[in-house]
């Protein structure tokens, strides 16, 4: 498939494939957005490179996708912006269904802190070296991951204890 990249995105892709040739899995475009799928073990160095050499200084969002396939079930997507060059690029990493784990990029962009917590909370993807990996929406006592495809829309009855309706006597 031929890509229709802007000048700067072409430079981004060229620079990445020059420096991390064996770490790039796939570069593709869909509806005008550019996605780069990379090896999970190279995430930190590629992100560092993108920030320091290619001016992707702003992390707009991090989110998870449940692909619901038997291998490499979860996908974590990083939505990066370069203000200087007016470009947006998406970096994707994939991880296994059993104990999904990705390196945390919160050292590179501080903004990743809450975004990664959300992915952890909703999909159960664990972020290595995250400074404060707690659940963000669901209480810590909740055992399931709501945005996984097998979690029912109605929820699981009895999964969260409800507060007692009688007031404390003391």
């Amino acid at each position: 498939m031929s890509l229709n990249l802007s000048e700067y995105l072409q430079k981004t892709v060229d620079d990445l494939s020059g420096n991390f040739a064996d770490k790039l899995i796939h570069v593709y475009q869909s509806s005008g957005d550019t996605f780069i799928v990379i090896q999970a073990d190279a995430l930190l160095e590629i992100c560092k490179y993108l920030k320091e050499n290619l001016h992707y200084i702003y992390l707009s969002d991090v989110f998870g996708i449940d692909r619901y396939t038997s291998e490499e079930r979860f996908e974590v997507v990083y939505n990066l912006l370069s203000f200087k060059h007016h470009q947006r690029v998406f970096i994707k990493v994939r991880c296994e269904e059993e104990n999904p784990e990705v390196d945390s990029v919160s050292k590179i962009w501080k903004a990743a802190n809450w975004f990664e917590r959300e992915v952890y909370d909703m999909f159960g993807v664990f972020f290595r070296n995250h400074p404060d990996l707690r659940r963000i929406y669901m209480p810590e006592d909740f055992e399931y991951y709501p945005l996984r495809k097998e979690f029912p829309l109605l929820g699981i009855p009895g999964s969260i204890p409800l507060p007692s309706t009688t007031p404390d006597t003391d």
Partner: protein
Amino acid sequence: MKLSDITSKVQPTFFKEHQKKLYQSLEDKHTTIEEIDEGDPLTTKMVLNMGPQHPATHGVLRLVLQLDGETIEKTKIDIGYLHRGVEKIAENKTYQEFMPYTDRMDYLSPYSNNVALCCAVEKIADVEVPERAHYIRMIGCELARISSHLLWLGTMVMDAGAVSFFIWTFKEREKIYDIMDRIGGHRFTISHSRIGGVANDLTDEATGAIKEFVKTFPNELKDWHKLLDRNRLFIDRNEAVGVLKTEDAFDIGATGPVLRASGYAMDIRKFTPYARYSEVDFDVPTRLEGDNLARYFVRMEEMHESIRIIEQCLEKLPKGPVRMDDAKKSYPSKDEVYYSMEGMIHDFMMTDTGICPPDGAESYHAIESPKGELGYYIQSDGTGHPWRLKINAPSYTNLQVLENILDGEMVADTVVIIGGVDPVLGEADK
């Protein structure tokens, strides 16, 4: 006594593990943990729980503040009290069915949320929108921006101590509600946008009301500028409070007016123009100080710019249809539905299955909502409902900023700073 003992002192009965982790994280945030003097008779060091339903928290927001006297040492924000799982709902509904839910996310500016979702679906499904619909959407979005900023202004000034201001801004908001009523038939949650255009055209009555508003509103704004711009009390409460430096603003991911008040003219309307924003003339107000006062000036100027945009839209408003004519991609008009069999079948199909973007397509579309970058990522599996729909909500991003800028401020300033950042919890707790 170390503060770590707080966990043994506080005996939560509800969500034990959650509460303990929260206090634990309060401790872990910085490497140094100050000793709390056991002989401190006034117990100036304490942990203060604000919220979840404090009137100044703009929704259900819980702040856990570690205080030293009146200074905040560390802040932890606990959200999730409102978590409605809208992304999960979206994945089980058709695109058009989900649209009214977006009204209820940032409920202070429903119109721009509708447009954000519709734009994203139109991008992934490759739907063309008629020219007139673009301009109507822009008018709606800018009215929503003014309405949202008005509520921010009223509550923020009220947090700073002036109550009557709230009434005045609501008087103006009331006019916007009336306009929305005439545009879409509802005052609050309008759901006026449709995939492929808008639900119905502007009536003469609506256009007249908008023109009237555009004419009178700048005078009101001028009065407010006169009252606040050099108001000693207001400036003292806001200047150098909640300072966010430019580099930090990038790093923590601030968006919208919070980023612009920290010195960067980042606006999605200029960055990747959607609708017809490339055709109208407007400026992106910016300030360098990054404090609460700067955020005030940025938002006030944005309201001026919005008025400018609406005026230009009304001038340029072209004639023509307001929704695309392809019944496979967008709702047919009611005339067709009532008087032709095909129209009725198409209407039924649109409601039942809706639009089906190609299998495996992915797209991200962002708009500049009043709070900042509001983006929808959609991944399609070829059916009528999205496989994955992710909302990049500006309030969520800005709440993380709040957690960082509160440190070192006075406890009395928290309410003003929350007001200045302007989060809406309906959107943050998505």
